[in-house]
């Protein structure tokens, strides 16, 4: 029983960690608080379902295609919508308010399009729906595949951010957008990359989610909320913190769903959020 909760929680936590990783890149590097993040995730989830049902495309191939598509969408969104706001704010605190408002509008726009095209009902696919024994616990194969994708995508990104020159550039802008140009970094380009990369992660996370969970066009707010809470828990801009906090939230949520009631998972998220706010608002893993 406990082992089941642990394994299922880790699977869910993998997707959450990936979701939060994308959001922390967008907020940490591009300084955009993206409230439409969950809706972007849902677009990817719906695309995967349509590709599977309509074209018979394997979800794994879909996710491989969704990642670059998400990057392009994020790139375009930043160029058309966020860039002008960044320029208008000119480094002042106004960007935060403007980006919150603009993405709040985007949230309704995307939700409206999804409701129009997909309707309000819950959707899911049955892919690799047979059980596989893991430490004596029967887990659906699709969940294991999804978890594997999350580990590979998340792990690759963590290594790239820590080890490559490109990762160093991204981290420099996250740390100080004012001093980054002094060492020859094109801040605007890096911010756009950070935003696009975050959207790509949202797309991959949405794809893995669609492999094993039911979802509906109106559920985006909850995903954004969970990703935001994980980001705060891990400390804004802290990639390792986001991964650990994402796993932790997946575990807590699965525990609450199995031991208490599946209708209280958002309440569990909020409870964690409250504890973090009152105890360590700078994030659980940040050094003071």
């Amino acid at each position, binding site marked *: 029983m406990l082992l089941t909760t642990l394994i299922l929680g880790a699977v869910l936590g993998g997707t959450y960690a990936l979701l939060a990783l994308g959001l922390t890149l967008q907020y940490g590097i591009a300084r955009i*608080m993206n*409230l439409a993040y969950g809706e972007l995730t849902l677009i990817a989830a719906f695309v995967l379902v349509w590709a599977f049902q309509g074209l018979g495309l394997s979800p794994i191939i879909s996710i491989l295609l969704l990642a670059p598509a998400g990057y392009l969408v994020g790139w375009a969104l930043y160029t058309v*919508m966020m860039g*002008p*706001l960044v320029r*208008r704010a000119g480094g002042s605190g106004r960007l*935060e*308010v*403007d980006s*919150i*408002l*603009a993405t*709040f*509008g*985007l*949230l*309704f*726009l*995307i*939700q*409206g*399009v999804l*409701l*129009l095209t997909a309707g309000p009902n819950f959707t899911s696919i049955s892919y690799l729906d047979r059980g596989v024994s893991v430490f004596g616990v029967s887990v659906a194969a699709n969940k294991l595949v999804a978890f594997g994708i999350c580990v590979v995508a998340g792990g690759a990104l963590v290594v790239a951010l820590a080890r490559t020159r490109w990762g160093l550039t991204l981290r420099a802008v996250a740390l100080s957008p004012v001093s980054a140009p002094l060492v020859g970094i094109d801040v605007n380009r890096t911010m756009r990359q950070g935003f696009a990369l975050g959207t790509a992660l949202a797309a991959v996370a949405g794809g893995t989610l669609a492999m094993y969970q039911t979802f509906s066009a109106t559920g985006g*707010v*909850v995903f*954004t*909320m969970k990703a*935001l*809470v994980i980001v*705060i828990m891990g400390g804004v801009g802290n990639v390792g913190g986001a991964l650990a906090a994402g796993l932790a939230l997946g575990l807590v949520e699965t525990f609450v769903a199995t031991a208490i*009631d599946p*209708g*209280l998972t*958002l*309440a569990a*998220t*909020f409870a964690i*959020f*409250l504890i973090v*706010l*009152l105890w360590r*608002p700078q994030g659980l893993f940040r050094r003071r």
Partner: protein
Amino acid sequence: MRKTLSLALPLAALVLLAAAPLVASAYQLGLLLGMATYVTLASAWALFSGHTRYISLATVAFYGTGAYTVAVLNESLPYPVVLAVAGVIGAGLALVVGLSTLRLAGIYFVIFSFGLSELIRELITWYEVNVTGTLGRYIFLDITARGIYWQMLALGAFTIGLTAWIHRRRLGLALRVIGDDETVAAHSGIHLARVKLIVFVLASTIITLAGAIASPRWVYVEPSIVFNPTVSFLTVIMALLGGANRLWGPALGAVPLFLVFEWLSSDFPDTYPIILGLLFIAVVFVLPNGVLAGIERLRQRRKA
């Protein structure tokens, strides 16, 4: 002269609006009530968010809480007591939210308010399904549409009056300084968290009362009906369009936008949220400070 005019004009308008139901048809009364509701919501929202720039996305969390309180208590308590209880619950909820987030940077407040209505909806649904065993309640109150309209009109007038009064007090000055620069505000001796908390609780209580007053119109109440996120969305866009940091800005945005939304939602029910989203983004891009500020800027340019 200007001062008496700025008091006499609104009072005359209030008297006219209060007399309107005597000649209005049922449909027109419904429109008037909707306008009064959104003027109240947008003005109360702007009371806190307009100057501090702390964007609250939780309007419907309070509005729905007010409506649901009436739904639960309307058969066991007299109506004025139910309203008072709704106000107290709204204030208590705002205290919890404010105490846990307003000491920190604005972003924590935004995030908390973003998920708040979903959370309350989930909690009430869980409670109703597991404890009381009935999802959905009826409101049978002996209140006419006219009565609801007059109450809402009074609440709206009170909200605008309160905003005007606060703006002339030290509290209003403190709010404006916080909105301009929190560091400066802290250095000039303003107790940041306390000022923000007082105004947030006031605004949230008004919004909760608005939900409680409007609730008899529904008759049948269910969490998914009263916690409709569109309400939060409309409130923010109305206040922004008019100008959230002006006294009459929210009212100026609420009246025309309410009529536009009425028309859109009846004639284009499917594409309505899409148009709404586009409109919202357009307002943020084109009129970030509202119509009133835009007009002033145009005038100044013409003078120069």
